[in-house]
Structures are given as structure tokens and as C-alpha cells.
């Protein structure tokens, strides 16, 4: 086990350096059609730099840049509609497009007609009916796990129920409208709340209104642990591409899929749902289920890894009590983070922004009625609708295939790597500074608030009954939420 994980860590570092060398000569050009090709380190940072607030405040987007983006969106939209078999929609999109050279339009039209000629047959492991039947069983399983095993019931119960409703034949509860006939209600939940990105963001606002960043402010350097733990995200991303490369076509993910799978390692529901709904809506069901299931399994997944990489002595380290944090610092904090995000990574501002809006409402204490509603009525209403809407993406032809197994496996790896990375960085930090921190709090960096922090606390008390790590673990824990939102922003900027 330890060997495996260590190998993975080393491997990725080696691979990284290999690339560092061979990719330098690379031109870093970004193809017009926005699917990142031949992106070198240099090219990537360059692209990212052009998407920073610092750069854009000084060089607003030019008409040319906007035109290029428009072209990219057009191609992407048509591709998506074609691969979903919506040929009519694709043609309409092409007709709607304006200010695009006719060659491109002709080319796209051809592409659509060719695809239409080939016809569209959703790939299925099982016949439609059987698939629906199995998915209903999957839904029941999720509900069982939620109720009997206590797996994140707030999300998995609605998701499971949504999966059942979606796979009922005839009823068409997740189908869109046809001519004059209204669509099913889950279709509207999905379009209004998920396609638009509104629901996960509102939940993130509520989470912000529930989160106390005090422990992080009191001991900021623990935020580094929240950064390290995001390593799992990118290992899983790499893994998804590796599977595609070596599974001989059995499993296949493109870069956007890989990014969506990686984000499972962020151990943060709203972030996973938001990113996946942007990059690969077809994977939304599997990704969300994996993310919430593993978050629920944190008390089972993390401890062995934590013990593996720490000695009893290390686990017994007690940390000095956290300093008092003033009200004003807590009020300033969300604004500081927002500003950093604006300057460095605007693509992450929807997530970070809403998280910090919620937190500002809480800490400012001048809009308590809004903050209360954000963390109660509003988040509950949205949770019900978001859960069922996510469940509506658990359709047989999307879920019952080898890819889903890959997603589940990679998600688990992501959690393990993230945990290990957090613990290892903690140990490294102890080497470098005299002020010792308990490496157990490193694992809390994956977020999964507040479960992971509780796990750190539990193991700490096992090693030393007087060792209360919870508050110390909350620092990396909440930093991990910010960390995965940042990772999501990077992926949106480079792959989106």
C-alpha cells in the first residue's frame, strides 16, 4: 500500500520532469477550437497569465480575441450537439452563429450532415428498458447507503431518488419539452439550477455562511496542507488519461472528462458539480456520486493512510492553542481572498466569490437575517432540487459502462493521494521549521469539511488522549475548500 502510493507520487514527479524537458521546445500555441492541444508548460502559464485579472485590467479582450473565443464556442457547441445526436439543434446553432467566416460554417454543416448520415445510436451495454431497471436499483442502493449507512444523506438521498424518477419508463420526468408539451420537472430543475450553475453556487454561499475561517487565520501556514492535498485532483486527472491511453478503448475520457474526474479529489461537492456541469455534464451523475460517497467514507479511507505515513510519536504531537482572531480580521479575510482570486484567477471567482459572499454575510454580522436564510431555508431548498437534478444525470447509457468503474477507482485514488500528500507535506514542514505541527492535520487538507478534521482529531486522541487537534485541523480543512475551488478555476481556464 505504502509502496503503491509512494510509487504513484514518485512516478508523477518523474513524468513531470520528463515533460518539463521535452515540452520546452513546444510552441504553446492554443488551437482555435479551445480543446487544449500541445499545451506546453510555458504555453499553459502564458494562457493562464492572459486570463488573470492583472493582465486583463490592463489589456481588455480585443475584438479578435472575442472572435476567436466565439469560434471556439461555436465549434464546441456543434460538436456537443452532434455527439448527443441533436442534429437539428446543431444545424440551428450553425444558423444562429453570426460574424463567422463561411468556410467554418460550411465545414460544420458538412460535419453535422455526415454525422446525421451515419445516424445516431447511443452506445448501450444493456437494452434501454433493462438499463433503466438497473439504474433504478442503483438509485435504491444510493438511498440505502444514505439512510442505513449514513452516506452524506443530504445529497445522496435526493440523488438516489432523482435517479429512480429519471429512469422510469414512459413518465419522462427528466425529458425536455416537445413542441407544445411541457417537459418533466427534473428537466426544469436541471436547466434552471445546474446548467446555469446557480444551484452549486448558492450552496457554496451557504457553506461560506456556515464556515468559520478563524482557525485558518490563527495559524495560516496550515493552508499549505490544504494546497498539497489537491495533488490528488491532478493524479486522478492523469490517471483518467492513462486509463484512456492503456485500456485499449475500453475506457475513454477526453481532457475535459479527465478534469471532471480529477475534481472528485477536491472532496468538495459543490465544486465538483459546478466544474463537471461545465466540462462534461454526461459524467455529472457518476462524479457527484463518487465525490459524496468518498466524502462519506473519509473516516474509513483516511486513517490507514494516515497511520501508514506517520509514527505514533508524530501522531502524539500536541499543538499550542490557537491565538484569538479579531472580528475585523474575519471580516477582511473574505474580501482579501476574493481580491487575490480576481487578480490571479478570475475563472475561479464564481466559486470563491459565492463562498466569500456567504462568509462575509456571516462575519459582518449586519445582515444576520440573510446569513441565516442562506444557511437554512435557501441551502435546503437548493439541496433538494440540486440533488434530484444531479440524479437526473444517472441515465443508463451514461452510467452503465466501464468509464463509471474508472471514475469510481480514480476518485478513490484521488482521495488517497490527497490524504497522503497532505500528511507528507506536514512532515516536510516539520523538518523545515522548529514549530512542530501534527502531521495528522495534513489529511484534513482534502476538505470534506468537517469530516476529515474530525478524523484527524480522532487519530490524534488515539495517540494521546489529551491531544485535541480538531481546531488545528479546521485550518487545512477550510483551506482545502479554497484549494479545490482554485484547482477548478485552473481547469476551467485551461480546459474549459
Amino acid at each position, binding site marked *: 500500500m505504502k509502496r503503491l502510493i509512494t510509487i504513484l507520487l514518485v512516478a508523477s514527479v518523474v513524468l513531470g520532469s520528463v*515533460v518539463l524537458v521535452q515540452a520546452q521546445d513546444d510552441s504553446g500555441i492554443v488551437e482555435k477550437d479551445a480543446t487544449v492541444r500541445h499545451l506546453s508548460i510555458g504555453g499553459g502559464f502564458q494562457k493562464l497569465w492572459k486570463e488573470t485579472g492583472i493582465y486583463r485590467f490592463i489589456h481588455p479582450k480585443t475584438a479578435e480575441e472575442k472572435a476567436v473565443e466565439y469560434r471556439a464556442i461555436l465549434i464546441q457547441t456543434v460538436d456537443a450537439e452532434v455527439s448527443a445526436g441533436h442534429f437539428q439543434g446543431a444545424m440551428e446553432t450553425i444558423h444562429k452563429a453570426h460574424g463567422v467566416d463561411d468556410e467554418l460554417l460550411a465545414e460544420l454543416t458538412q460535419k453535422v450532415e455526415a454525422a446525421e448520415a451515419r445516424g445516431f445510436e447511443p452506445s448501450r451495454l444493456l437494452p434501454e428498458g433493462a438499463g433503466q431497471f438497473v439504474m433504478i436499483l442503483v438509485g435504491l442502493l444510493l438511498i440505502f447507503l444514505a439512510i442505513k449507512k449514513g452516506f452524506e444523506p443530504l445529497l445522496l438521498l435526493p440523488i438516489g431518488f432523482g435517479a429512480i424518477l429519471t429512469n422510469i419508463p414512459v413518465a419522462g420526468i427528466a425529458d425536455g419539452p416537445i413542441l407544445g408539451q411541457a417537459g418533466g420537472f427534473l428537466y426544469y430543475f436541471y436547466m434552471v439550477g445546474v446548467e446555469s450553475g446557480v444551484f452549486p453556487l448558492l450552496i457554496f454561499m451557504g457553506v461560506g455562511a456556515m464556515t468559520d475561517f478563524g482557525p485558518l487565520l490563527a495559524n495560516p501556514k496550515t*493552508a499549505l496542507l490544504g*494546497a498539497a492535498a489537491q495533488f490528488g485532483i*491532478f493524479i486522478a486527472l492523469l490517471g483518467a488519461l492513462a486509463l484512456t491511453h492503456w485500456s485499449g478503448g475500453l475506457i475513454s475520457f477526453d*481532457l475535459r472528462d479527465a478534469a471532471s474526474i480529477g475534481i472528485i479529489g477536491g472532496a468538495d461537492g459543490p465544486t465538483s458539480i459546478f466544474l463537471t456541469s461545465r466540462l462534461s455534464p454526461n459524467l455529472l451523475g457518476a462524479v457527484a456520486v463518487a465525490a459524496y460517497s468518498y466524502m462519506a467514507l473519509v473516516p474509513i479511507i483516511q486513517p490507514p493512510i494516515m497511520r501508514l505515513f506517520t509514527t505514533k510519536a508524530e501522531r502524539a504531537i500536541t499543538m499550542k492553542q490557537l491565538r484569538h482572531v479579531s472580528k475585523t*480580521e474575519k471580516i477582511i479575510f473574505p474580501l482579501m481572498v476574493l481580491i487575490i482570486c480576481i487578480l*490571479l*484567477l478570475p475563472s475561479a471567482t464564481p466559486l470563491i466569490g459565492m463562498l466569500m459572499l456567504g462568509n462575509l454575510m456571516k462575519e459582518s454580522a449586519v445582515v444576520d437575517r440573510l446569513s441565516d436564510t442562506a444557511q437554512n431555508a435557501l441551502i435546503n431548498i437548493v439541496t433538494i432540487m440540486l440533488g434530484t437534478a444531479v440524479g437526473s444525470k444517472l441515465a443508463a447509457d451514461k452510467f452503465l459502462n466501464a468509464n463509471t468503474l474508472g471514475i469510481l477507482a480514480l476518485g478513490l485514488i484521488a482521495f488517497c493521494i490527497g490524504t497522503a500528500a497532505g500528511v507528507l507535506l506536514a512532515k516536510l514542514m516539520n523538518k523545515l521549521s522548529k514549530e512542530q505541527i501534527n502531521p495528522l492535520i495534513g489529511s484534513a487538507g482534502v476538505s470534506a469539511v468537517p469530516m476529515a478534521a474530525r478524523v484527524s482529531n480522532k487519530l490524534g486522541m488515539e495517540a494521546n488522549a489529551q491531544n485535541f487537534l480538531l481546531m488545528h485541523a479546521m485550518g487545512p480543512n477550510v483551506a482545502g475548500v479554497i*484549494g479545490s475551488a*482554485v484547482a477548478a478555476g485552473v481547469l476551467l481556464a485551461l480546459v474549459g
Partner: protein
Amino acid sequence: MDSLIQGVVLMIIGMATVFAFLVLMILAINSSAGFFRKYAHLFPEEHPAVPKKTTLTNPDVEIAVALAAIRAKRG
């Protein structure tokens, strides 16, 4: 192989950005902490300047108060 390289590139850029972001955040926190330690006296821990009451508030309460006062005055 190509796509794998893409993955590694994303990993390096991604982790670099995550660390850069959080390091910046740490610096910001520390400086703000320093600032408020230095000028703590300027920011007493009192409650915010705003009264909870706002245009969204129910006047009834007010009236109750006034009434009470009036009665007090009378009795």
C-alpha cells in the same frame, strides 16, 4: 502519449497555481494580522455600527416601545 503530457502539464501548472494562490493568501493573512495587531486600538471589538433594524424591519416593535413609554408616562 500526447494527452498524457497534457495531463502532466495541467498537473504542474495546477499545483503551482494552487500553491501560489494559498501562499499569497497566507501572506495576506499575516500582513492583515500584523496590521491589526499594530493598530488594534483603532478597531475595538465592539459590535458593528449598524442597528439590526432596517427598512425590512417591523414597525410594530417600535410602536410597542412607544406605547409602553406613553403608559409609563401616564401611570
